């Protein structure tokens, strides 16, 4: 259960569910662009390129079948963003959902922030399972009754009447007076109805970013959040939509001097004044908002000196950090660049404390990966609930887990072939050299169109959500 089997080799991962179309012909709008569990793990949200958000809910565990853990079923779906057009620059603004972040739950409703390139929206997801019934505002012919004729308000406890149920002789509750006019209004009562999940946009935070928003992060103060685009980071209050504070601006006066862009940003999970942002040059800057209003000057700069033996033309491109995530305990942060995952201790800026190679066999293939643009893929990474294991995606629908304590790693595959219920996932291996063993895959036969960019780990349990191009796989550890 939670965290006890944190080791990736102690845990046997097995298939639970897969969502999405089976056919290989992928519609562009169905490409999954973000996956996020909420704080309790009960809800799982996905965003896609068509601007839609689908939320899955974990059903209450089925006591009669202890083997299979509870499943995620569709709870709500809504259109979050629509394509827009920037007339000034003649550019389309894609509706692709770049990030979804859940707000901590404060009442019965759930709130999440979803963002595309330009606009952030706060959505309220609430349930409705009752509706008012028993209106008798109309006469038989469908016209509304004349309010001037109404003389009384009738409360009915157990039953409601429509105008058809009036008894003509007045024996039952009658709404009509002697002239045959309705003069009593029935107070409607709430009746249970089929559960309906409503999604309504509560706030729209727009017009604050000239460049493309790549990250949003909710502060631990439960009041503010940040949004980061390529050159600027803005601080918002969740209630205020018409203004935001700019806290980081790396745009130079002369655009010719621009050398790096912001690739990701995140607030510290516990310290509401601290946030980090990563750059395309492989550096991470930690900023303290107490130091100054504009945090252009970093408080800490995390940068690993480059290994001169590995230097190549592509060094700068593959050092670009695509994702940065704080650990749950707030002591470490993890960064993902093209070939590796690095774990940094926040107290040590000079180098990471741990480095894991995700797919080192690609280092010799960088040239062809540059040709097909794969070198620019932005992989995400995630921690498990107790920060003992980290996970990230790779190509050929492989994803990798690294157990920090046991110094072990495993490669698993999200595919339809391994999709029988409760089927245990078999570890996969890629062989870099020519001597290919049985069940191994050679580097040249990897499918670079099948990539896992987005993964998420349940905050407490060993349940993971892995997104291939247009399918969402849910795996859990084997429950014995």
């Amino acid at each position: 259960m939670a965290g006890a089997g944190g080791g990736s080799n102690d845990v046997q991962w097995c298939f639970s569910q897969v969502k999405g179309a089976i056919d290989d012909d992928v519609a562009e709008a169905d490409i999954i662009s973000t996956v996020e569990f909420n704080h309790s793990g009960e809800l799982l949200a996905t965003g896609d390129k068509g601007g839609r958000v689908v939320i899955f809910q974990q059903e209450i565990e089925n006591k009669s079948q202890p083997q299979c853990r509870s499943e995620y079923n569709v709870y709500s779906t809504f259109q979050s963003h629509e394509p827009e057009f920037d007339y000034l620059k003649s550019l389309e603004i894609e509706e692709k959902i770049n990030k979804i972040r859940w707000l901590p739950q404060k009442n019965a409703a759930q709130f999440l922030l979803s963002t595309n390139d330009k606009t952030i929206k706060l959505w309220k997801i609430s349930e409705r399972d009752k509706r008012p019934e028993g209106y008798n505002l109309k006469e038989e012919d469908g016209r509304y009754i004349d309010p001037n004729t109404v003389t009384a308000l009738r409360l009915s406890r157990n039953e409601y009447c429509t105008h058809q149920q009036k008894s003509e002789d007045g024996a039952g509750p009658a709404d009509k007076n002697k002239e045959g006019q309705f003069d009593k209004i029935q107070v409607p009562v709430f009746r249970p109805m089929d559960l309906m999940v409503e999604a309504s946009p509560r706030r729209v935070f727009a017009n604050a970013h000239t460049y493309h928003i790549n990250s949003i992060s909710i502060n631990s103060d439960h009041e503010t959040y940040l949004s980061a685009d390529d050159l600027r980071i803005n601080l918002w209050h969740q209630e205020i939509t018409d203004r935001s504070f700019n806290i980081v601006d790396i745009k130079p006066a002369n655009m010719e001097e621009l050398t790096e862009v912001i690739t990701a940003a995140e607030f510290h999970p516990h310290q509401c004044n601290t946030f980090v942002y990563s750059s395309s040059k492989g550096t991470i800057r930690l900023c303290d908002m107490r130091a100054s209003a504009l945090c252009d000057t970093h408080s800490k700069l995390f940068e690993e000196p480059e290994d001169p033996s590995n230097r190549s033309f592509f060094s700068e491109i593959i050092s670009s950090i695509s994702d940065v995530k704080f650990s749950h305990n707030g002591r470490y942060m993890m960064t993902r660049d093209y070939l590796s995952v690095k774990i940094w201790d926040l107290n040590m800026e000079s180098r990471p404390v741990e480095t894991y190679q995700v797919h080192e066999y690609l280092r010799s293939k960088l040239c062809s990966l540059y040709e097909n643009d794969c070198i620019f893929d932005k992989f995400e990474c995630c921690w498990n609930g107790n920060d003992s294991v980290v996970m990230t995606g790779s190509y050929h629908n492989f994803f990798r887990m690294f157990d920090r304590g046991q110094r072990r790693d495993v490669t698993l595959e999200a595919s339809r072939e391994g999709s029988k219920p409760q089927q245990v996932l078999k570890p996969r291996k890629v062989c870099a050299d020519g001597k290919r063993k049985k069940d191994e895959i050679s580097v040249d036969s990897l499918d670079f169109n099948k990539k896992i960019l987005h993964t998420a780990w349940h905050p407490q349990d060993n349940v993971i959500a892995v997104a291939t191009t247009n399918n969402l796989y849910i795996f859990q550890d084997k429950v014995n």
Partner: protein
Amino acid sequence: MSKQEKMELDLVIPSTLVQSDGHLRRSNSAPMINGLSDNSQVFHREILRSRRNSTTVVNRPNMVPSSPIRVPSTRLHQIKREEGVDVMNRETAHEREVQAAMQMSQSWEESLSLGVWPILGHQSLKNRIRGTAVSDNDFEKSASSSPKRIDFVPVSPAPSPTRGIGKKQCFSPSLQILVSSNGLSPSPIPSPTRRFSRRSQSPINCIRPSILGPIKRKGEMMEMESQPKRLFHGTTTMLSSDLPTPQQLTDFNSCLCPPDVLDGSLSSVGSSTGSPAKMEGVSECPSSSNSPFTPLHDHSPK
């Protein structure tokens, strides 16, 4: 930020030459455009292509860069490119506006000197003209300075509050379809008056079903297998064979309309005024004044 851009405009000599192949070209290249080719010395010749992963599609057919050398298609270079081109765009727009304003001031000058407006005989027009231009000279001055005061279109247009996305979107987990906010399935008859014309080329005009969600799959543990133990009070006629396709969704106002208004008004209005007005009856329900969009003010982060 706008100040800086104006300075950039002043520095660059705004003369352009049209090449024989029809591409606009600067007579003296701005430094930033030259700078783009610094990193491209090692690349073989290739036409610049926009990144597959790029999140905006640069859609200007006349903006093929003059240099055929391939530039690394990172976000960094994309921004540099866009900023450079923007300067050219703004410059072109600025020239156009200056010319238009000069034409305007010329035509006004002519009409004022010829004494045209007394002929118009429109009292309010005269008063308006008198109010804005004390004398001919003053008007000329204001006309020549007007290009600087022309307002640009806001960067990202605020979404129209009449769009369906502004309203609540309701989903029924047990039925696995989108429903109207009063609990009934949407009417299977689409109303032509409620379609929103879209400016972009996206074919959607309302929510299409996500492939992750409520679509039946063979051989997969389906959400619908376990029957929900919840009461259902909807009208069964709505649920039968005509489950509407998502394109037929109309937006129903939330919470203020009693459920049988839908049926009642549809039939009554429809019988008297014909089908296109069917949805008008629904829309007469007082729209939720709690619009989710607070007034948006354009502001720049600086």
